[in-house]
């Protein structure tokens, strides 16, 4: 069901070539880079400049291997050995594996005296001018230079001369600091800006040991995808101002989740320590976001630790226990005719929450419920035109997207609606005037931060932010993906789905769900597009749904 494969290849048949990797013959499609062939065969080849999503300039020389070519007979045909395979002529000279494409009958050795000697030498060269910055370097702990020098390096320096001094702590962009002494000139960042971000601002100046990375005169690295260069920089040359000196990476717990800032649903890793999220980085998912994500989205998590976070249930602005708050909310909601209550949910909620919200609406007999649409200008890459991460899910679960908001607003204004249930939205953004909110008899609000609506709430229930809960969302492409809990919610705040479940029970609706898995199961049972899926079945990379009534496409 789930898969780690790359997106479906174009249907045209790619011929397979025979390659011998460390003595074993294997087949790879034509066009595969030699380093990829080695890695796919389970032979790791250390590398700095090679990146699977970027071109191969071959400028770090770390990926040196020994190449063998078929020995050609007099007829220019490969001579075959006893096993029927070509006899290989091993080159005495190493070759880089990242910029070499495989060819028929090629052989490669990823280890052996020659290769080891080469790696050793490359490491020594790379470290010649490298500063002893590890104690203050943010990359330490996830630094390829550290890792490879432990693995392949000499362990000591023979370099007695003065190291080349280069600029340090250079402010090259709004979100990025450059340390040129640490740069190993792999050019990944340059290629990323050229090939992926299409914003050519980085380049090398000077030659030899004095080669220096810099921004073009008059330009700055301010692109909304600039922080990806920090991710791919194999060393600590590029560092994020937001994360700089915040926390050492070895303390961070990484939680796989998804971005909730737009309908793309980029896959992310939430790095947290002891209840505090320190950074968010993109997670590779070739179906969604490849290896990248926009800066504006990855930096949008600090609100989770806002001092104003709602932490205690409030009944008429006075702190209350959860039991009291839930029963008060239920009593208030039930005191109105169903026709006089409305519900505003949010397409930022997970499927599970939306499903329970709909159940709550059913239990209360609410007819008027809607979610707030958030159309926006996308960037044509990873920021979609929809600011809601789960519009598809909301639609799938039978919530309207915007059609009824004006009717609700009018109802609230005219007094036809006396009770309003607002889940994770600011009602004033839905066309309801603040003054009208104050006139409502019942205003139950579930949210994580104060907004213009919360002061008027008769019952205010604090909920969880995206890093504090589990659940699933469906992106605009129809892929259902999982959120995971990285930290726990502050104070008394609870999981949204639990709040909704308790409200349903309190207004006399059905119970029977005690875990998010059970919510999903109940939801899948009622939603044809989700049939056969489970929370675990979604996997880390998500599952593409067939949303037009057709059966779900089996994944490759």
């Amino acid at each position, binding site marked *: 069901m789930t898969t780690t494969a790359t997106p479906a290849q174009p249907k045209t048949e790619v011929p397979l070539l025979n390659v011998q990797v460390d003595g074993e013959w294997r087949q790879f499609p034509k066009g595969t880079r030699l380093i990829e062939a080695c890695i796919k065969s389970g032979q790791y080849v250390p590398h700095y400049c090679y990146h699977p999503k970027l071109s191969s300039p071959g400028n770090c020389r770390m990926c040196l291997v020994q190449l063998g070519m078929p020995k050609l007979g007099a007829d220019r045909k490969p001579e075959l050995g006893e096993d029927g395979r070509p006899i290989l002529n091993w080159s005495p000279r190493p070759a880089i594996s990242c910029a070499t494409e495989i060819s028929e009958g090629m052989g490669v050795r990823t280890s052996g005296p020659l290769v080891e000697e080469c790696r050793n030498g490359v490491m020594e060269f790379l470290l010649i001018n490298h500063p002893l910055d*590890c104690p*203050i370097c943010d990359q330490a702990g996830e630094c390829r230079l550290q890792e490879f020098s432990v693995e392949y390096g000499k362990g000591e320096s023979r370099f007695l001369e003065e190291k080349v001094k280069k600029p340090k*702590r250079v402010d090259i962009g709004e979100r990025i600091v450059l340390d040129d002494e640490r740069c190993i000139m792999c050019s990944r960042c340059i290629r990323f800006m050229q090939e992926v971000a299409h914003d050519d601002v980085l380049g090398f100046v000077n030659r030899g040991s004095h080669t220096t990375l810099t921004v073009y005169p008059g330009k700055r690295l301010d692109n909304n995808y600039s922080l990806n260069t920090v991710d791919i920089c194999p060393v600590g040359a590029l560092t994020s101002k937001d994360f700089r*000196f915040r926390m*050492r990476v070895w303390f961070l717990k990484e939680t796989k989740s998804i971005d909730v800032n737009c309908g793309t649903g980029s896959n992310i890793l939430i790095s947290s320590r002891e209840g505090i999220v320190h950074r968010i980085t993109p997670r590779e998912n070739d179906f969604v976001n490849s290896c990248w994500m926009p800066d504006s989205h990855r930096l949008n998590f600090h609100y989770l630790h806002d001092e104003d976070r709602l932490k205690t249930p409030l009944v008429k602005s006075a702190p209350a226990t959860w039991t009291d708050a839930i029963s008060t909310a239920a009593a208030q909601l039930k005191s109105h005719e169903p026709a006089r209550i409305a519900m505003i949910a949010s397409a930022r909620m997970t499927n599970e929450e939306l499903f329970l919200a709909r159940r709550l609406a059913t239990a209360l007999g609410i007819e008027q419920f809607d979610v707030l649409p958030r159309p926006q200008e996308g960037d044509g890459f990873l920021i979609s035109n929809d600011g809601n991460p789960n519009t598809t899910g909301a639609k799938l679960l039978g919530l309207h997207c915007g059609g009824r908001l004006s009717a609700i607003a009018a109802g609230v204004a005219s007094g036809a609606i006396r009770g309003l249930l607002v889940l994770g939205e600011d009602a004033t953004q839905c066309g309801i005037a603040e003054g009208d909110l104050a006139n409502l008899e019942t205003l139950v609000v579930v949210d994580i931060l104060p907004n213009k609506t919360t002061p008027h709430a008769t019952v205010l229930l604090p909920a969880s932010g995206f890093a504090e809960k589990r659940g699933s969302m469906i992106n605009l492409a129809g892929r259902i993906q999982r959120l995971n809990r990285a930290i726990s919610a502050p104070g008394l705040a609870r999981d949204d789905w639990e709040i909704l479940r308790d409200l349903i029970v309190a207004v006399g609706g059905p119970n029977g769900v005690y875990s998010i898995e059970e919510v999903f199961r109940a939801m899948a049972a009622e939603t044809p597009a989700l049939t056969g899926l489970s929370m675990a079945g979604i996997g880390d990379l998500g599952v593409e749904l067939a949303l037009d009534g057709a059966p779900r496409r089996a994944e490759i």
Partner: protein
Amino acid sequence: MAFVVQRPKLNLAEKLYLPAVLGGLLLTIRHFFKGAAGRNVTMQYPEVKWDDHLPEWYRGAPTLVADEWGRERCVSCQLCEFICPPRAITITPEEIPNSDPWAKVEKRPKEFEIDMIRCIYCGLCEEVCPEQAIYLRKDYSITGYTRAEMKHDKAKLYELGGVKAGVVNKWNEKK
């Protein structure tokens, strides 16, 4: 495989047990008189102290040290925080502002706390520190009336640690 413990064969006197008891009683009474005569091994702690005999390698309270130019050696790399077995150390790093004379070091601890209730004086922090910034000095009588008092903050740690001169000063060589 079952393992059979061979019980020793006892002779009658041993079986009677009384001779052994009497032997034991004789032994203990000898110690009793020795003890009563004041020949015991106890050291009367607050009056008598071992301080002068503390060996060079004695591991007392961990402290932070400055170098001979007054620079705090710690660069807040948090390795000690990582290695500390009881997790006694809590470090909040910060960036050194550009105006600081030691701005090139870039990073320093904003707050450095060692919870002396937790610390087990193992010395791993000293061993792991790449900057030779944390040393276990000879203070062993770390007491306090409250838990808060037992948390040594940065100021207290530097007060206890003082200056450590003559070790590697790699930051001085850089431009």
